[in-house]
């Protein structure tokens, strides 16, 4: 999967699940702030990413991922 494909998939997935416009999901934007995540909905982010990309992560690991750009890299690293 190319980086562009990951970005496109992540953006569409998160926009749909967390009900935000795709335009607000930019590489430098803060994930928690943009998606209005609290400690509970962070679990949903983990479940969503794990389910979609078939990877295994957890809340502690994911909470270190601050921006969408870091998230794309994080996923790319996991599926590489």
């Amino acid at each position, binding site marked *: 999967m190319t980086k562009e494909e990951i970005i496109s998939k992540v953006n569409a997935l998160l926009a749909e*699940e*967390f*009900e935000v416009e795709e335009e607000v999901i930019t590489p430098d934007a803060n994930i928690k702030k943009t998606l*209005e995540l*609290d400690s*509970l*909905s962070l*679990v*949903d982010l*983990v*479940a969503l990413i*794990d*389910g979609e990309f078939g990877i*295994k992560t*957890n*809340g502690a690991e994911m909470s270190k991922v601050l921006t969408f750009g870091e998230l794309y890299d994080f996923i790319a690293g996991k599926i590489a």
Partner: protein
Amino acid sequence: MERRVVITGVGIYSCLGKNLEEVKQSLWDGKSGIIFDEVRKSMGFRSALTGHVDLPNLKGILSRNQRVYMPEQAQYAYVATAEALANAKLDQDYLESHEVGLLYGNDSSAEPVVKSVDTMREKGDTTMIGSGGIFQSMNSAVTMNLSCIFKLKGINLTVSGACASGSHAIGLGSLLIKWGLQDMVVCGGAQEINPYSVCSFDGISAFSTRESDPTKASRPFDRDRDGLVPSGGGATVIIESLESAIKRGAPILAEVIGYGFSSNGDHISVPNVDGPRRSLEMAIREAGIRKEEIGYVNAHATSTHVGDQNEAKAIAAVFDTYKPEVTSTKSQTGHEMWMAGASEVIYSMLMMKNDFIAANINFENPDEDSAKLNIPGQRVSKHFDTFLSNSFGFGGTNSTLIIRDFKG
């Protein structure tokens, strides 16, 4: 000094309609909300009959982070509560600046439990269940969601009393107000309607198998009844002290004048006569009225053989020679279980406010016990200002409410 308890708002979301106006019309028309559900048949149900309620679309009304914790019955309860609050002329500012309580009847949340376990088994990872699973799975799912959404600050409690849950919620709420512990309580009952929630109930042969004619299947008190039909939805009744209602200029719809309760202390599923009789007598005693003042009785009768038979005996014993109209609105709705005690207060209020008694549909031939009651099979035009509503549940829990039109 004991305070008077009045009803200032009601809201309903049921198989008879998605709001008070639709439900009133269905009651007037004698419409049935029962359908045959192919999905249940394919799942192995003995009876595929059920009340039908559409899931409300709350997207755009509640945020994603509010909806994710709500099982279906909490969604029904939300819609009913929003209608009740609007009718009671209560806005968010009022709710947030007063100690408003919440007592809601609910006694299961099966589907989220099943789905959570399925996900865990399939994925081998509990994180994959997501954040909503735990909150949706609990019996208190309705009260925990409504209290957070509406920011309620008084008592916050789910009443689990089987098929009397909704009635007990109103009764217990009325006591808190009567004794001065709360000025206002949002009461009600909610019932999930998904197949998972009733498959085990179907398994004990409690449901009608008259699948060839779904709208004729629920036939309380009729000689040829063969079991109940499960149903669901949400019903909200807002009660408050008379002083509170007057102070804020609220529309006063009716007054809760009596709450009776009892336990059979007997069989887990088979009701008896003595327990319900004591509940009725206590409600009448607490109301401080003569039984002849009761113009209508909304029976619990679910369309089971022994349940209807024993309730008929209890009503006949209490009312003796006086014979007010007795009907079971479950003939139209099916059995709304945890919700029924609250919804049936609303159905009865709609009749009281519009001078009619809805037909006990499908009542074609009485049996030996129902013949002793005055059960109209057709709609009756009648003015009445006081009604009694029965709700009984597994384990022998009984609740009876007496409601009177508000006279000032």
